[in-house]
């Protein structure tokens, strides 16, 4: 039988590139926060440089992400309704509470970690000392940072759970309705987080030892992503999982999707090999490819998923956006994120963060570069 659609409709993507940005940024944030734990929660001094980069990454993406989410609402001024009319059967409704809790706990955690440095900056004689005295609440104790960190970690698990489930429960989109999707979001989120940290590590020159550490972690993350991808295809091809089989069948016949599969494989294999073979001097390359891989995975899932008609024939155009309007969400969100990175690294003593509650870590009060002599 041959069928030709003569009159059909095109359904535009209802979740815009803003949504891609949200899932990208919040996935990075919610996985980066766990990379802060070895130092800031478990007290391992050797992990401090990585933890500092991870906290910088988690906070900046953790703020920019929810802004993108708000922008994806067509009625952003009604966001308060999420908290007043919570519909308990909706993962998105739970997500609103989880996101709010996560951002608050993450900021409290970051504040607690940085409090001793805020206190020191507040004691220096310089223009903005008053601001840091306010920020430190005139104290430097931060033993409670561990509690805030664990709280943020629990909320981060909530983020990873809800963002995955919110998409995976949508039966009407076969590409989304797969049990492995939440795990894939988490694993690619971690890859994206390590990618950002590698790039930031090169930018702030944290040294080859740290870079090699992060590259090995990235290789491990990419291996997990590859294993999940292989498992996805295995259960889809074998018919072990009907939903995965349906997901594969929904896109397998289209050349554009075959190219995407090859591209995705390359985005995993290439940085994996580089990270293994040259871990100490490849941060720019592996980092940028890892960021690209995490972002592309989400773009493919969200925009590609919406390009598959539910009842019509062929594919819609959502996969390849046209025009500046479609890209504004991407450009605007990355712009905001870079702005936050600049603000954070300028006004927050992120590289002075030490083990919380460790009196030995508090430096002597030597005049800093901010002190105005005379």
């Amino acid at each position, binding site marked *: *039988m*041959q*069928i*030709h*659609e*003569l*009159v*059909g*409709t*095109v*359904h*535009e993507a*209802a*979740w815009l590139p803003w949504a891609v940005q949200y899932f990208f940024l919040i996935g990075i944030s919610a996985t980066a926060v766990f990379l802060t734990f070895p130092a800031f929660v478990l007290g391992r001094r050797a992990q401090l440089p990585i933890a500092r980069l991870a906290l910088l990454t988690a906070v900046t993406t953790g703020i920019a992400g929810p802004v993108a989410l708000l922008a*994806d*609402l*067509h*009625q952003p001024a*009604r*966001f308060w*309704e*999420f908290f*007043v*009319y*919570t*519909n308990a*059967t*909706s*993962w*998105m*409704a739970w*997500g*609103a509470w989880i996101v709010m809790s996560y951002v608050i706990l993450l900021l409290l955690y970051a504040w607690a970690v940085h409090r001793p440095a805020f206190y020191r900056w507040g004691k220096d004689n310089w223009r903005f000392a008053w601001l840091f005295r306010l920020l430190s609440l005139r104290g430097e104790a931060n033993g409670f940072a561990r509690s805030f960190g664990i709280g943020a970690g629990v909320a981060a698990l909530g983020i990873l759970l809800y963002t995955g489930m*919110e998409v995976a*429960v*949508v*039966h*009407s*989109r076969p590409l*989304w309705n797969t049990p492995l999707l939440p795990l894939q979001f988490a694993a690619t989120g971690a890859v994206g987080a390590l990618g950002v940290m590698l790039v930031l590590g090169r930018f702030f020159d944290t040294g080859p030892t740290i870079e090699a550490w992060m590259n090995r972690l990235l290789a491990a993350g990419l291996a997990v992503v590859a294993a999940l991808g292989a498992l996805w295809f295995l259960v889809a091809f074998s018919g072990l999982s009907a939903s995965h089989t349906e997901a594969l069948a*929904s896109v397998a016949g289209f050349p554009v999707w075959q190219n995407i599969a090859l591209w995705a494989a390359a985005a995993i294999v290439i940085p994996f090999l580089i990270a293994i073979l040259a871990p100490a001097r490849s941060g720019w390359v592996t980092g940028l490819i890892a960021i690209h891989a995490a972002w592309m995975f989400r773009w493919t899932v969200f925009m590609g998923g*919406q390009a*598959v*008609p*539910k*009842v*019509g*024939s*062929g*594919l819609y*155009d959502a996969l390849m956006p046209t025009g500046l309007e479609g890209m504004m969400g991407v450009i605007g969100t990355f712009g905001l994120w870079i702005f936050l990175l600049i603000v954070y690294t300028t006004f927050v003593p992120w590289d002075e963060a030490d083990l919380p509650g460790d009196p030995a870590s508090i430096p002597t009060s030597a005049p800093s570069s901010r002190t105005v002599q005379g």
Partner: protein
Amino acid sequence: MDSSRRQFLGSIGQVTIGAAASIAGANSADAASGSATDATNATGPHWGMVIDLRKCIGCQACTVACIMENDVPEDALRTNVSVYEVVKEGRDPAMVMLPRLCNHCDEPPCIPVCPVGATYKKEGTGEVLVDASVCVGCAYCVQACPYDARFINHETQTADKCTFCVHRTEAGLLPACVETCVGGARIFGDLNDPESTVSRLLAENDVSVLRPEMHTAPNVYYIQLDEALDGRVAGEAAYRPMVTDAPESHGESV
């Protein structure tokens, strides 16, 4: 209420003009009262639609009537008629029409996903509706609908869809698409009433629903629906011209 347009026209000869308010049949008073509390009455109507594909000629009069009745924005449709050319082995090509609209499911996947409870099923009569004053425009329901029957209305920035013309049925009128259907292919009525035309059509014909595998219990039924068309239609897509931002004007400039 239980009628296609053709039956409605036929009924004019049988009743007085003064009875026109009850043209929709014995249950129209229930429909006209319209409040949710009244609608919980178990004897009240439960609206459904039967689409007899043998009678649809693909004229899109329903599409246009819906747009005019519901002020549907230019870039969206609440209902339309998909048209396919189906070539079966050894047979001549056939044109097949498939009117599409919200199925007003009894197990609607769009309702549980709504984070703020803005989309709901009207008690009793069963229309799936959106409270646009509450909708946050998150479009989760648009994703969840397996029929692509929902969209974001860019004039209201909220979720939008077919309402079975609830504002008309509450006034004892037929939905605009039914009212205007040239071939009498769309038949609307009370599924609770075993004597209604829709109930009789369901009893007397082999009927199908779209995407039965989704288990949504739709209230839109099709007579003579080809299995190849009841889900995602695997075939060549229609030509889709690029949509420009500035629509061509066909009317008198204001």
